[in-house]
């Protein structure tokens, strides 16, 4: 459900450009269809009025773009943040990845997003999509108009939304929401209940579909290394070949370890995966374990917090003693 209209965002952007608060606007450019919007930086009023778009398919997390878009420029950038984006925003600030002074953040309430990719798997030949309150009308080329409840088309990652509350902004459009009881660990618990063999088979099945396109890494706001070890020919692990299923497991598991404690659970990895691998579940397992060992911790909830796994205290449990391998939590 769309909480704020395109015009509200556009007018805010025009106002901030006009009064000199910002010099550029990070937003979405209209596409060929209603669902294929593209992140874009708008440099002036005319460009905004012509191509600026805001609809229920504007789901991509803008935060990572702030690294490249604030580097080597003194211009100030307007960014619109959904609640989930604001956690990544804070996490990137914690890691000193962009200059806060060069960004003006406007919080945008979010009623959940749709995904063009998911929609096109449910409906054939989509020609247009319009959202009216909690109803979605999907026009098709050959099957007429189809009506859906918004909830039934909600993108996968929004089904377990952790928060409607913005944790960072300079200004907020509309009302702020609350941190939600998301049930986001239910699926992790289901995997924990499996026997090790079942769990191995589950991940073998999922990860064997990996085509090593690296979209999960490239979109991830926690993956911001200037040069990824998997792109380094001298690392010995650069292997682009999906040589056997172990290669893929190694890549995804190493990546999950690398972002552990820093992953805000924004869900971009699974959103972009062209092969529908539920990568977010690896990250959620880490988040769940960190919560159970060290107390609840949400990466990005505030700027400057130290993740429990980089913050030694004498009360820390010894993970190998805190859980028994092969049972439940392991």
């Amino acid at each position: 459900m769309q909480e704020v209209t395109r015009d509200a965002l556009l007018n805010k952007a025009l106002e901030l450009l006009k009064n000199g608060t910002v010099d550029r606007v990070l937003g979405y450019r209209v596409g060929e269809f209603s669902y294929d919007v593209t992140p874009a930086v708008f440099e002036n009023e005319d460009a905004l009025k012509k191509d600026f778009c805001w609809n229920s398919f504007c789901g991509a997390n803008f935060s990572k773009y702030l690294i490249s878009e604030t580097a080597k420029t003194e211009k100030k950038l307007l960014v619109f943040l959904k609640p989930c984006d604001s956690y990544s925003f804070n996490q990137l600030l914690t890691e000193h990845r962009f200059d806060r002074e060069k960004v003006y953040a406007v919080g945008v309430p979010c009623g959940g997003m749709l995904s063009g990719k998911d929609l096109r798997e449910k409906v054939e030949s989509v020609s247009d999509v319009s959202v009216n309150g909690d109803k979605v009308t999907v026009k098709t080329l050959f099957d007429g108009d189809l009506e859906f409840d918004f909830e039934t088309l909600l993108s996968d990652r929004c089904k377990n939304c952790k928060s409607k509350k913005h944790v960072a902004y300079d200004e907020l459009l509309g009302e702020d929401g609350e941190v939600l009881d998301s049930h986001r660990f239910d699926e992790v618990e289901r995997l924990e209940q499996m026997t090790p063999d079942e769990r191995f088979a589950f991940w073998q099945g999922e990860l064997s579909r990996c085509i090593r396109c690296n979209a999960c890494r490239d979109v991830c706001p926690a993956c911001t290394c200037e040069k990824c070890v998997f792109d380094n020919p001298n690392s010995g692990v650069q292997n682009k070949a999906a040589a056997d299923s172990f290669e893929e497991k190694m890549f995804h598991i190493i990546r999950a370890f690398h972002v552990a404690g820093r992953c805000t659970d924004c869900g971009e990895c699974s959103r972009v995966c062209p092969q529908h691998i539920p990568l977010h579940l690896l990250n959620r397992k880490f988040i769940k374990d960190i919560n159970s060992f060290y107390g609840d911790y949400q990466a990005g909830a505030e700027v400057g917090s130290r993740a429990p796994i980089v913050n030694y205290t004498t009360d820390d449990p010894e993970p190998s003693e805190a859980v028994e391998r092969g049972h439940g939590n392991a």
Partner: protein
Amino acid sequence: MRKISLSKLPELFSAIAKTSALYLPVDTKAGAKFEAWAVGKTLSNALNTVRSAKDFFFPQTENLMDFKVEGKNIELIDTRKECEDFVLFGVRACDVKSFEVLDRVFLAEPQDTYYKNRREHALIISTACNKPQETCFCGTFGIDAAEPSGDIVTYRTDDELFFDAKTEKGKKLLDALSSITEEADEKAVDQQKALIRERLQKLPLKDLKTEGFGSGKTAEFFDDPQWKELSSACLGCGTCTFVCPTCQCYDIKDFDTGHGIKRFRCWDSCMYSDFTKMSAGQPRLTQLERFRQRFMHKLVYYPTNNDGLFSCVGCGRCLAKCPINMNIVKVMKALGGREDA
């Protein structure tokens, strides 16, 4: 022309599978995928597979040869094996055309024997597209979704599947299937073609034109200022190149197994920072340059080297899968739509 009732598809597949391995699109959790047929597997209704059919001739990873190292001796081990005959069923017009694009690369001298081996052992059964998608634009590249190429072309009506053999190889297989198929006239197929062509006229991208692109246009597009804006949101992932039926770039590396060496080939992507890395470094330092390379290759460089043939077949996979929704259609519209063009 022969036909079979759709209710007898399992019999058809079973009969084909008796002659050789049979691969066909089946539905999986992650969309349609070509899989080896086995009893109980049913043909997907999806318009196209998530990954293209190029995998059968140009697999993502393959072992080219092994080396055995003993003291000062290096033994070369030829790991090639003669490919077994196989049938690829349900290939769409766009993917069939992609084989021609790949052939011009891999079968040009010096021929790629690995590719050639698989190509020669394949029999292609194509299927006309009853329900094209909004992302389809094969017509832009002169492909007719109502009349695909292939050894055998099939047409599906509400209750029957029609076969039209186009090559000797196709005729031979169709003859072998004569006991379960029956003679058919062209009427139903003509009607189906008419329906498909009517639908193709409704596609939103039907007016996309290649005019302006093609052979010898490098200077015209290379320094276009729009590349910056078009490429600015690109993540640099390889999704578009890996789902693309015509992307054909690869890397060759040696893998030290500890007791020998495996030389393997794997898909590479011009979107990657280490693509075509040379002793002097990577020739394309920014994502703008890498992004430009992909589209210039499809729309200018490939046609320049291949009698004007474009290396895009309008399958729409990149439109469906790009994480930031940037694609060749948007690039063509932006660059071709210039006032001074």
